Every structure is written in C-alpha cells, then in structure tokens.
C-alpha cells in the first residue's frame, strides 16, 4: 500500500518533469542537436597523429649526396617541404614565425665526410613549442636518415666487395599493431568523445533541474506536497536517464556507422556499461545541486568537477604518464572507466569478464554519491 502510494507520487513527479523539460522547444532542441553536431566536429578534430611535418632545407653542400638526402625528405609522405632556403637566417626567421616546424641545414663538406667514411652531420632546428609534434617529427627524421645511411653503406660494400653484399647482417623489426592495425587516431579518440559529451550534458542538466526549482521558488510548492526527498530525486533522475540513453545510442551509432570505428564487442556489454555511467553522471548532477543555490553556481560548480574529470580520464593524455597521485585519483573518476569500457568494447571486443571491475567502480561511485546527496538534500528552505 505504502509502496503503491510512493510509486504513484513518483509517477506524478515524472509526468511533471517530462512536461517541464520537453515543453519548451528551445530546450528540446538544445538537448538533442548539439551533442550530435559536436560529435561530428570533434570526431574529426581529435587526433594526435602527426601526418605532415612542415620542413625547410638549406643545402650548402650541393653535392649528389646532399641532394639525395633532401630528396628522401621531399619524397616522404611525412614531410611537406615548404621552402628551399638560401641563407641560414631564412631558417631561423621561418622557425620564429612558425612557417615550418623543422629546418635542415646541410653544411658544405657533408659529402666529403661520407665518402671518407667519417660520420657526417646535419644541423636541425626544431620548433619545440609543441613538444609532442616536435618529438614525433624528430622520430621521422631519424628514421629517414638511418635508411639513407644504410643504403649508402650497402652501395659502398657493393662497389668494394660485391660478392659479400648480400651477407651484410641486418636485423629488422616486424611490427604488428593489434586492435587498431592502421594505428588510426580516430578509433582511439571517438569513444572518449562519446564519454565526454554524455558526462557534460547529463551532469549539467540534472544539476540545473533541481537548482532551478530552488532558484525560482517552485521548491516551496513541492515542499507542501506529501512527496519524499528520495521520490523527488528519483523523479528528477529518470527523465534525464532516458534522455541520456537515447543520446548514448545515437552517439555510439554515429561512431560506428559514420566514423566506422570497428565494433568488435557486444551491444549488451556497452549498454550496461553506459547505463551505469549515466547513473554516476546523474548522481554527480544531483550532488552538485545539493551544494549550490543558483543556476550560475551550479554551472560553475559542475565544471569544477567535469573539467578535471575529463583531463584525468586518459581521454587526451595517457593516465600512465600522470604522476602517481593523479593516477590514483583517476580510479575514482567514472569517466576513466566508461572510456575504458567504450574503447575495449569497440576495439578489443571485451566482455563482462574483463570489464566488470570498471563497471563495479562506476556503480560504487554512483551509489555513494547518490546516498550522500539524498542525505544532504533538504526539501525545506533555510
């Protein structure tokens, strides 16, 4: 009997919420369209691949050897040769202006050193203001130069002792990238973008839904009804949970169908993982609403949590590169876990057996935070 009454109260609360949220066409639009547009843009923008490094060359040696080295760079798909410089100052000025990232200066005597069997050296200027791109660019550079040196040596041996040429010992590395054979950056980042978008939307919307009632005074009207606090919170959570599920389904479909991220796992694993994550995001929203009074506070308060959650989730930068303290902090973060679930289900086809610790961690986070919020939430106004 008591339960039936409670359920009926929650039912009325739900109806009120649905009407309130979906009545305003502007809000309806704002809840559905932006996540899709964002997904489309950010899916393309989020890449750490360095595909083309801009390069300038100053060849002061101007020999067959130096031209051969330069042609290796201009022929490489990693480099775009922006400029053949004629003076050393051109290189410095260009780097300073940011016209190119790397500048090669081949001094005269390069070929002589090579022919004499001494090591030859090339000067390189690097704009390292973006350290990751600079590192990757230097890596490409070393690869090309090593190949050049090896070929040059093979030629030399061919000339001196052709009978031995095929016996020069050489060790190669055969690389097999698993789960993402093309080392495609999009495959890695799109699951992260899905997690981020859901966290941002669901948390802010839930926090707002409760704080708004407080701010515009309708919480007083709720106060005089027989509804209990957990019923009130439940009524606030269910509609946004459903919106979140809808949102998640759309985003994962876009990820699979539009961006063609391979989906190796089971939809059920993904669905369970995402629903637990939605609960965690909803709880965070409810929690924020209990510590803030106005919607502006709620917005800034929400991002007080959301920004670190995104940065510590391993979305853009790997968790393993963080200091130990922040690595521990990232275990508490539901976004870390859901991104892991999304990536592993998409790319590795992982099931419950591997992913249950992530799901359990998110569930514990959700329940703890929800418990604290219900206790903190007061129907009364002080």
């Amino acid at each position, binding site marked *: 009997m008591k339960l039936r009454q409670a359920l009926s109260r929650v039912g009325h609360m739900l109806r009120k919420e649905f009407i309130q949220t979906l009545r305003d066409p502007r809000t309806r639009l704002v809840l559905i369209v932006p996540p899709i547009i964002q997904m489309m843009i*950010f899916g393309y923008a989020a890449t750490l691949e360095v595909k083309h490094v801009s390069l300038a060359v100053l060849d002061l040696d101007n020999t067959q050897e130096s031209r051969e080295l330069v042609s290796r760079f201009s022929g490489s798909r990693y480099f775009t040769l922006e400029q053949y410089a004629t003076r050393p100052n051109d290189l410095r000025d260009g780097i300073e202006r940011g016209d190119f990232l790397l500048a090669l200066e081949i001094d005269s005597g390069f070929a002589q050193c090579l022919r004499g069997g001494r090591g030859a050296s090339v000067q390189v200027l690097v704009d390292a203001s973006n350290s990751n791109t600079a590192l990757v660019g230097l890596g490409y550079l070393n690869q090309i130069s090593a190949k050049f040196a090896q070929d040059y040596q093979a030629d030399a041996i061919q000339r001196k002792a052709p009978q031995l040429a095929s016996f020069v010992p050489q060790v190669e590395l055969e690389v097999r990238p698993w789960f993402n054979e093309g080392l495609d950056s999009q495959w890695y980042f799109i699951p992260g973008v899905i997690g*981020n978008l859901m966290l941002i939307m669901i948390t802010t919307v839930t926090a707002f839904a409760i704080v708004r009632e407080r701010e515009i005074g309708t919480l007083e009207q709720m106060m005089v009804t027989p509804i209990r606090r957990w019923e009130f919170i439940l009524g606030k959570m269910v509609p946004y949970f459903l919106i979140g599920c809808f949102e998640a389904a759309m985003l994962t479909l876009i990820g699979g169908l539009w961006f063609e991220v391979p989906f190796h796992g089971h939809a059920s694993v993904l669905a369970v993982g995402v629903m637990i994550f939605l609960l965690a995001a909803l709880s965070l929203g409810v929690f924020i609403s209990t510590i803030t009074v106005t919607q502006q506070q709620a917005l800034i308060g929400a991002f007080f949590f959301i920004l670190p959650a995104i940065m510590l989730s391993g979305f853009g930068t790997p968790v393993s590169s963080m200091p130990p303290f922040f690595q521990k902090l990232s275990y508490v973060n539901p976004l870390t876990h859901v991104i892991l679930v999304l990536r592993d289900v998409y790319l590795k086809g992982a099931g419950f057996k591997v992913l249950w610790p992530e799901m359990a961690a998110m569930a514990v986070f959700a329940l703890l935070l929800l418990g604290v919020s219900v206790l903190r939430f007061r129907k009364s106004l002080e």
Partner: protein
Amino acid sequence: MSWRRVLAMIRKEAIQIRRDPSSLVIIILMPLIQLFIFGYAVNLDIEHVPLCIYDRDGTQTSQDLLKHFQATEYFRIVRAADSYNEVVQHIDDGTCTVAIVVPPQFSQTLHSSGQASVQALLDASDNNTASIGMGYAQGILRSYSSEVQAEWIEKQGLATGPPNVSFQARTWFNEDLESMANFVPGVVALVMAIIGAFLTSLTIAREWERGTMEQLISTPVGKLEIQIGKLVPYFIIGMADTALCAGAAVWWFGVPFRGSWTVLFGCSMLFLITVLSLGYFISVLGKSQLAASQLAVVATVMPALLLSGFIFPIDQMPVAAQWITRILPPRYYVSILRNVFLKGTTVRVMEGQLFALAIIAVVLVALSTRAFHKRLE
C-alpha cells in the same frame, strides 16, 4: 548614454556578486585549482612503456639484443613470457603495451644469411602510445643492427667505416621537449575561455527567469548601459584570474616567460572582452538559464578543449575542421599565450591573430547588442 547610469548598473552587478561570497571565491580560485591539476596531470611524455619479452632463441645473441631494451628508460620490462599464449594474454589484459618476440634460430639465421627479424606486438588501441613505443623499438633495433654490421665489416676487413648520418638537433622554445611548458600556457587559455563565457552566460537569462528584468525595464537605463554594466565587473574578475594563472605558471611551474607582460595583459584583455561578449550573447539568446547554459557549454567547453590546439595540433586536423577553428576565439588565445610565454613573440608577429580576435569581438558585441530587446513580449 549616461555614465552615471552605467556606474549604477556596475554597482548593482557588483553588489549582486558580492552578496554571494561563496561563488566569488569559487570563481577566483577555480582557475588556479584547475591550473594545478592540469599542470601536473596533463602530460604526453611517454616513458617506461610496459614491455613483455619472449625469447624463443635463448642464445647469447638474442640475450644481447634484449639487453638493449633493458638499458633504455623508454621501456620497462615487466614480464618475461615462456609461451606465445602468455604473450597474447599480457597484451590482451593490458599488462604490457609492447611485446618483443625473438624467433627460434634467430642467431643462426643472422649469422648464416645475414637477414634476421624480430617481432614486435603492439596494443594499438591507444594509437599514440603505440606509435611512440613502435618508434622507440625501431630506434633500438636500428642501433643494434648497425652495431652488428660494424662488427661484421671489421671482421671482413672492409675499410668502409660507419657512414652514419647524425643529426645535431637544436630544439628551440622548449629546449627539454617538456610537455609541461607546452601545456601550462594552454591550460591558462582553456580555463579563461571557459570561465569567461560562463560568467556572463546566465546574467540576462537569470533576470528574465527571476522576473527582475521587468524592474530593469521600468528604469531609464538603456540596453548598451545594461551591457556595459553587466560586463565590467566580470571583466575585472577575469583579469584577476588571468593574472593569478599567469603568475602561477611562471613562478610555480617554472614555465619560461620570454615575452613582455604588457603584451600578455593586452592580449588577455582583448580575449576576455571576446569571451565575455560571447557569454552575454548566449545569455540574451537562451532566455532560460537551462538553454543558455547548454549553449554556453557547446560554444565554449569542447571547442576550447578540442579545437583550440591545446591538446590536438590544429595543423594536423582535416581542412574543414581547421576552418571551424578560425571562428573560435580560444584557438587564437592558446597560440598567443604559447608564443608570448615560450617564444617571446612581439605584437608585430602576432598581428594576424590579434586582428582576427578583434574582429570576433566586434561581431559578438554587435550581435548581442542587437539581439537584446528591452521590452516584454
């Protein structure tokens, strides 16, 4: 326009902000707290990649090769597997990112035919770590290969010498290739982009929602006066935030500061005006605080995170995405801050970026002034 009314409006807003001291504290401290979290945590330096080795050859030669992996700080050998299944399992459950498998008869093949190969298995689900790990592994193998070659050439009595081409790289602007120096100025820009727009994004919507807009309408204050009055207090708070963050970046994180403070603050003022106007425009547009807040989130958070060049370099994006970044203010501010901090760039070199930012500011101010109507419908 009357300055007296503008001043009155500023006073009203200032009182409203002051009445809510907890918000004020959060607004001022939040950027600093975020800066500390990000400054330490956001890092793309990849070292100590967990490595698994499986030596199926088990000779002096193969051991010698694997020692090369032990000696670097790029890899950390966490497992030595005894079977192929074990290797697969370690990669599957994420214990290791890279596995090096030396095939049976490795040394025999190398000595008889000269050509031998070693297998590297990568967990490429994180493609960035995988690419960098692959690069490290190739580098190690290359140096091993040339050592073997040099030995062989000496034994054969071929006096060709090692024809190696070495690069003397001079890295500018961030000599130690430290992620932190690159990220901290970016974080300052990121935090200011978000805070700036958030501060003003609810100001007008709030007045409508609470019904105080009617009171404002009945006063003689004009719409431009309302706009200036609403923006000035937040502008002051925003500048204080910028100063705090820039100070912490230089004195706490030790990011090199090679430019001039005047340039930094001048550019920051222009940027703040842009983002505050963006927030104000959203506030006028959104009407309800819920709609305004969602618009503010869409317009600021993800663009500032993903389309600003803060983590993901803009010049590597598809051309269409690059065009979109051009209409977003954070892109210019991230690049300006990095330039001023690391390169000490002068205003003349950054003319283009400042000009673009100024155009965006003018457009946003004009749009929000036009969109706001001081009447009830």
